[in-house]
C-alpha cells in the first residue's frame, strides 16, 4: 500500500470507530462468541502446556502417575541436571548440532545455485521448477524408507568377517560403477560418520524444495536494472552473483537459514524414517538420537519432569541460535 492510500483510508477508519461505538456492546459479545472456540482450545492446548511444562520441569523427578497417587515433589533443578548428565545428552546435542551445521549451509548454497540457474533460463523453467518442488509434498517417513533401501546392504554383514552380501544397495552399486569401494552405510557395523553422511544427504534432499521456492521468489522480484548495469560494466557472472544477487537476496537467505536452523534442531522424523524407532543402526541403537528424541524417550518412560526440562533446554537452544542468527543478519542483511 502506498502513502496516498494510507492517507485516504485513515479518516474513514475514524468514522467507523465512532459508528461502531454506538453498537459496541453488541459487537463485543459477538466478537467473543466468534473467538470462543479458538480461545478455549488455545487455553487448554497451548497456554496451559506452557505453564505446566515450566512447572513440571522445576519439580524434581516429577512423574505424572506418582502425582496422581498423591506423591508430592520438591522444587528444584534436578530434572535439568538429569538432562545435562544423561549419557545420551551430549551425543544427542552433538548429533543435532552436526546435522544443523552441515545441512543448513549445504542446502542453502545448493538451493541458491539452483534458484539462480532456474532464474536464468527460459525453456523448461516451469517444468524443472515443478520437479525441484516435488520432495516437499512427500511423507518424510515413507521417503526415508526409500533412502534406507537405497543405502541398505541386504545380506549378512558385520558378523566377524563372515559377510555374505547379496546386494550392496544401489548407492554402493553406483559407487562401484565409478571405481570406488562399497561403504557400509547403515547396516550392522556401520560407522557413525557413514550414518551421519546418509542423514545429511537425506535432510538436504528434503530441505531443498522449500529453500528453492523462497529464493526463486526473491530472485524474481529483484529489479532487472541491476543486472543490466552490471552487464554494461562487463561484470563477471561470479561477481554479479556475489555482489548483486546475494546482497539483494539477503533477507530471503536470512529467512531460509533461520528456519533451517530451527527445523534442524527439531530433527527427529527423518531419522526415524531411515533408522526406524531404534534411532541407530542395529549394533548401536540410539547412537543417532537427537534432542527431540530425548524428550520423547523421557516422556515414554513416564518422567514428564525430565521431558519438560529437555524440551525447555531445546527451546533455550533454539532461542539462542535464532538470536545469533538475527544478530548476524542485522549486520549482513540489506533491507
Amino acid at each position, binding site marked *: 500500500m502506498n502513502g496516498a492510500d494510507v492517507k485516504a483510508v485513515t479518516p474513514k477508519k475514524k468514522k467507523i470507530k465512532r459508528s461502531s461505538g454506538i453498537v459496541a456492546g453488541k459487537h463485543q459479545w459477538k*466478537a467473543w462468541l466468534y473467538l470462543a472456540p479458538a480461545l478455549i*482450545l488455545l487455553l487448554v*492446548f497451548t497456554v496451559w502446556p*506452557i505453564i*505446566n511444562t515450566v512447572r513440571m520441569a522445576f519439580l524434581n523427578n516429577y512423574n505424572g502417575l506418582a502425582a496422581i497417587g498423591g506423591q508430592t515433589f520438591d522444587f528444584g533443578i534436578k530434572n535439568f541436571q538429569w538432562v545435562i548428565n544423561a549419557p545420551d545428552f551430549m551425543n544427542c546435542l552433538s548429533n543435532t548440532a552436526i546435522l544443523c551445521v552441515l545441512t543448513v549451509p549445504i542446502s542453502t548454497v545448493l538451493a541458491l545455485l539452483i534458484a539462480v540457474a532456474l532464474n536464468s*533460463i527460459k525453456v523448461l523453467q516451469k517444468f524443472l521448477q515443478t520437479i525441484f518442488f516435488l520432495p516437499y509434498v512427500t*511423507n518424510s517417513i515413507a521417503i526415508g524408507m526409500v533412502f534406507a533401501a537405497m543405502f541398505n546392504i541386504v545380506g549378512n554383514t558385520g558378523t566377524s568377517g563372515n559377510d555374505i552380501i547379496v546386494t550392496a544397495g544401489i548407492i554402493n552399486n553406483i559407487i562401484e560403477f565409478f571405481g570406488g569401494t562399497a561403504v557400509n552405510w547403515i547396516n550392522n557395523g556401520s560407522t557413525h560418520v557413514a550414518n551421519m553422511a546418509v542423514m545429511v544427504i537425506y535432510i538436504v534432499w528434503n530441505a531443498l524444495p522449500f529453500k528453492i521456492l523462497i529464493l526463486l521468489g526473491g530472485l524474481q522480484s529483484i529489479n532487472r536494472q541491476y543486472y543490466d548495469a552490471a552487464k554494461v560494466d562487463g561484470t563477471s557472472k561470479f561477481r554479479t552473483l556475489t555482489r548483486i544477487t546475494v546482497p539483494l537476496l539477503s533477507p530471503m537467505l536470512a529467512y531460509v537459514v533461520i528456519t533451517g536452523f530451527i527445523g534442524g534442531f527439531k530433527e527427529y522424523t527423518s531419522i526415524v524414517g531411515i533408522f526406524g524407532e531404534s534411532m541407530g543402526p542395529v549394533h548401536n541403537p540410539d547412537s543417532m538420537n537427537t534432542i527431540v528424541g530425548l*524428550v520423547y524417550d523421557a516422556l515414554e518412560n513416564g518422567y514428564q519432569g525430565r521431558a519438560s526440562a529437555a524440551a525447555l533446554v531445546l527451546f533455550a537452544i533454539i532461542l539462542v541460535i535464532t538470536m545469533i542468527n538475527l544478530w548476524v543478519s542485522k549486520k549482513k542483511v540489506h533491507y
Partner: protein
Amino acid sequence: MDNKQPNRSSFLINDEIKCASCGKVLLKKNGVGLLRGKKDEDGTYLCSKCYEMKYPAKMKKKLSPKAKRAKVGKVLYMILVYAFLVIMALAILFPFYWMINSSLKTLPEYKLSVPTLWPRTIMFSNYVEAFNQANLGRLFLNTAYVGIVSTILSLVITVLSAFAFARLEFKGKDLIFGAMLATMMIPGELFTITNYITVANFGWLNTYTVLIVPFLVSVFYIYLLRQNFMQIPNELYLAAKIDGTSDIKYLWKVMIPLSMPTLISITILKMMGAWNSYIWPRLVANDDAHKLITNGLRNAFTESTGDVNYPVQMAAVALVSFPLFLVFVFLRKYIMKGVSRSGIKG
C-alpha cells in the same frame, strides 16, 4: 532523391524506403524512425536479410574475435547451467524412480548383485500384498477421516477468529492477537508433554478425538486469513450491515468467496499435515483401530525380524506417496503459494 537519403539516422522523409531486393518497407512514408536496413554499394537500400544473403562474408567479418568468444562463452555457460539443473533434477527424482522400480520387482530380482534398472517381470501383485500386509485400507480410512474432520472444523474456527480480528472491535483485541502470535515461537515439543497428560486425563487416548481436537487451532492460519480479510474494503461490511445482513451471511457470501485461494491453501496444508503426522499419533493413538498412515507404514515393516520383502515394502511406500503426488499435480499452485508464505509443513 539519393542525396537526401538518410544514412541510418532518423528524421522525417517524404518517400517510403523499400528493400531493393525483396520490397519490404524499411521506413514508412512520412514516418519517423530508425532505418531498418543497410545501404548497398549502388545507393539503394537492402533489408538486413537480403544484405546478409548478398554479402555473407561481410556479415561474418562483423563479429570480432572478442564478440565471438563472448558468444561461445555464453553458449557454454547456458550448457553448464542446463547440465547442472538436469543433474540436480535427476538427483531429486532418483529416489522416486528407485521406489517405483523396486516396488515392481520380485524379491530375487531385487537381491541381484548387479541391479536391473527396470524390472524384468512386472509384479503388480506386490501392491496387493503391501495393501494387505500393512493393513493400508484401514490406515487410509483412518487418516482420511481424521484429515477431513479436522480440516473442516479447523476452517470454521479459523474463519470465525480471523473475522473477529479483522472486522470487529473489542477490548484487548491487539493484546490477544499479539499473545497468540507470540506462541508461534515456541517449539511444538514443549506442548506435546502436557497435552499428552491432558488427553490422558480426559480419557481420550486411542480415540479419533485425540487426533483431531488438540491441533484444531493454528495461530498461523488465523493470522494468514486475517491479513486476507483486512484487504477486503470495510465499506462492503458496513453496506451489508445497513442492508441488515447478518455477520454469518456476510462472511459466507462475501468474505469467504474473496479469500478462496487462502482457504484452499490452508485446506491442502492441513490435509497434508494429517497425512504426514507421525509423532503425536504414535504417542496417543497407537492401537490398530486408530493408527494413522505414517505410523502404520513405519511399524508394518520394522516388526518383522525375518527376511524383509523389500519390493513389498517399497510398494507400500509408493501407495502412501501416491495420493500426495495427485494432490501435487492438481493443486501445485495453491501449495506453493501457501508454503512460500508460511514455511511450515502441514
